[in-house]
């Protein structure tokens, strides 16, 4: 099957391309950008006039709920939602049931994704067995089984000796350690940012120090071990400043933020809105601005969805008793596009935060439109308005604080390995 995508504005930050050009695909791979190779005849032509053609998006953090929580979502349902969001590569954390601490579970996830999925799924392996924080996993075996990094998911490794050994062992095998920086002692039973709003609502808080303490102690161990660490979902300005400093000092660290932390703050919790119950918590306006600045400065490498689909009941309880998380795959691109509209970053930078930069963190071949690369492509109309409503969501989870928001920028078509996996009606 030979395809051409014509008249689109091709933005491929990795190759420094931003121009209206044609793109040519054969056998699922990109074979040329610009003019057609000699003798090329397309079986199918996609007219992308007025649209942006970019690499398929790469999401560093999406919970697909399979195996173990299929009532919340499945690999099939959630990768379909990903395709609608223009996302072609998803990284899933290891806190499934069973946990990804053996090669069998890692292989199961990838096999299911290959068989039923609309996007590529790359798993993270568990850092410690059962995520218990005391014994490290067989990281070499996990790597052989396709794990692109290791992580203890949302559970902190409270024993710093174990964390140090785990980082050393991961470094031995060239695996990046993904850290959710939250000190479990300081976070305690908190469910919101410890600040003015949480204080007024009488909800137990997670102080900023829960993040900064964990960032600081992890950075000390990076200095000690030389392990490569990626901090997931930074939520505070101060946490980000520490990472910025560490990068300046040359430590092998990187970080991402979620799209919702760039648009919402603790104020959105008023009225006990459980759709805004997320972890890490939404913090202050200052923090939100700090995170946006971090993207503009290049300290933040990627914007992730932290997709967490839930059944409706999970959010139908008093705030503290609800489950944290939002269904976020379908809003990742339009929320990132808002940063461009708000003048925070350029279109090219935004696309690079959603494509080749996260791909580089995962060490996977994705996120570019290079010749010979798999044809994972997102075609979107940056000017098109649409409203997010629960009936049209493809994710099993309709839990989103952005319901009924007017979104600007709609994915028109997603290609995975040259095949259309999503097309807007």
């Amino acid at each position, binding site marked *: 099957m030979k395809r051409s995508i014509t008249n689109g504005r091709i933005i491929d930050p990795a190759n420094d391309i931003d121009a209206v050009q044609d793109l040519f695909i054969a056998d699922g791979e990109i074979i040329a950008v610009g003019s057609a190779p000699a003798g090329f005849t397309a079986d199918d032509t996609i007219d992308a006039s007025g649209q942006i053609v970019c690499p398929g998006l790469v999401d560093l953090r999406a919970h697909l709920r399979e195996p173990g929580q299929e009532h919340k979502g499945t690999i099939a349902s959630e990768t379909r939602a990903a395709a609608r969001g223009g996302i072609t590569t998803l990284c899933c954390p290891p806190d499934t049931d069973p946990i990804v601490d053996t090669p069998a579970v890692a292989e199961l996830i990838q096999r299911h994704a290959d068989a039923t999925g609309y996007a590529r799924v790359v798993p993270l392996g568990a850092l410690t067995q059962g995520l218990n924080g005391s014994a490290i996993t067989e990281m070499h075996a996990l790597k052989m089984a396709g794990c692109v990094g290791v992580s203890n998911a949302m559970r902190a490794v409270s024993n710093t000796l174990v964390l140090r050994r785990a980082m050393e062992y991961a470094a031995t095998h060239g695996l990046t350690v993904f850290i959710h920086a939250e000190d479990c002692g300081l976070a305690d039973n908190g469910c919101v940012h410890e600040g003015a709003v949480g204080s007024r*609502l009488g909800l137990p808080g997670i102080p900023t120090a829960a993040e900064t303490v964990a960032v600081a102690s992890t950075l000390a161990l990076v200095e000690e071990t030389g392990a490569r660490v990626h901090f997931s979902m930074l939520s505070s300005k101060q946490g980000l400043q520490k990472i910025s400093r560490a990068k300046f000092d040359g430590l092998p660290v990187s970080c991402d933020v979620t799209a919702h932390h760039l648009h919402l703050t603790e104020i959105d919790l008023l009225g*006990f809105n459980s759709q805004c119950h997320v972890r890490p918590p939404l913090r202050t306006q200052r923090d939100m601005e700090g995170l946006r600045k971090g993207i503009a400065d290049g300290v933040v490498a990627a914007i992730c969805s932290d997709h967490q689909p839930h059944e409706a009941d999970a959010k139908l309880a008093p705030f503290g008793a609800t489950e944290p998380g939002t269904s976020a795959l379908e809003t990742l691109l339009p929320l990132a596009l808002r940063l461009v509209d708000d003048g925070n970053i350029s279109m090219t930078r935004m696309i690079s935060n959603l494509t080749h930069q996260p791909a580089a963190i995962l060490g996977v071949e994705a996120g570019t439109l290079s010749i010979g690369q798999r044809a994972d492509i997102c075609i979107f109309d940056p000017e098109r308005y649409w409203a997010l409503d629960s009936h049209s969501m493809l994710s099993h989870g309709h839990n989103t604080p952005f319901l009924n928001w007017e979104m600007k920028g709609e994915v028109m078509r997603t290609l995975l390995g040259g095949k259309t996996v999503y097309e807007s009606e």
Partner: protein
Amino acid sequence: MKKKNRIQLDDNGKLKHFLTIEGLNRQMLVDILDTAESFTSVTEQNIKKVPLLRGKTIVNLFFEASTRTRTTFELAAKRLSADVLNINIQASATAKGETLLDTLRNLEAMHCDMFVVRHADSGAAHFIAQHAAPHISVINAGDGQHAHPTQAMLDMFTIRRVKGEFHKLNVAIVGDVRHSRVARSQIHALSMLGVEDVRIIAPKTLVPTEPDAFGVHVYHDLREGLRDVDVVIMLRLQKERMRGASLPSEHEYFQLFGLTEEKLELARPDVTVMHPGPINRGVEIDSVVADGPRSVILQQVGHGIAVRMAVMSMAMQSHLPEATGGRRG
């Protein structure tokens, strides 16, 4: 904040749910106090009943143990001639799998008119008000660490009876403000009624995060904070605070923040001492003070009935046929 709490008012701006002081206005609080005043005569009559809520069913839905609050709500409802159903659902029962929403739907099916809710989770009363059928009023009888507005109003009632006016008063709240729903509601009510100097006196571990958001003055020294105070409200100290590393011991707490006759001398001579109860004698307050002439702790309990009658009757008013043109289906 105001907009979000519009849930408490009906389309005509009348009280429908009573969930928190925030989002209400001064006139509404004064109305509650005035209505409560008119009910005090009822409680002193031989036949202690008025027929205002005859035929209405009120459910006391208590997910957390309580004696004083529940019984005063029950008495208040009965004096308004309502039928009262007491349901105590301890955490263990809901752990059977029935969600709060299921419990709610079951009770709605029994055609109740009002839920009086106490729950250990902040926001529980809001949640119930958001999801209850439109004809049901919800009264918050304490949710987590968020609000306890009827307790705050009975305290305001007590202060008004003793002091008359609010705006010239200095009021100090002493103790565990951080974890106290009572204190949060008191602070909002005091500010709304015009008290300019609301103080909280506590060690840093018990002061709420960002006290500026509450518009209070913070003191860490009881003697300093009590100076020229007209009303001092003592809060109950929970034993958990010692386990959670917020305090070293009851002994040191009493030494520093316990109210004694000697420390009370620093306040205005006509100072009034209050406590929402139940009191820990010798922990936050000396028995001599608690039982002394300046204490109004027992009056507070009595006022609880009149204030709760006022709130219940006002909330039910919002959907009586003459008030809204027959909203009930």
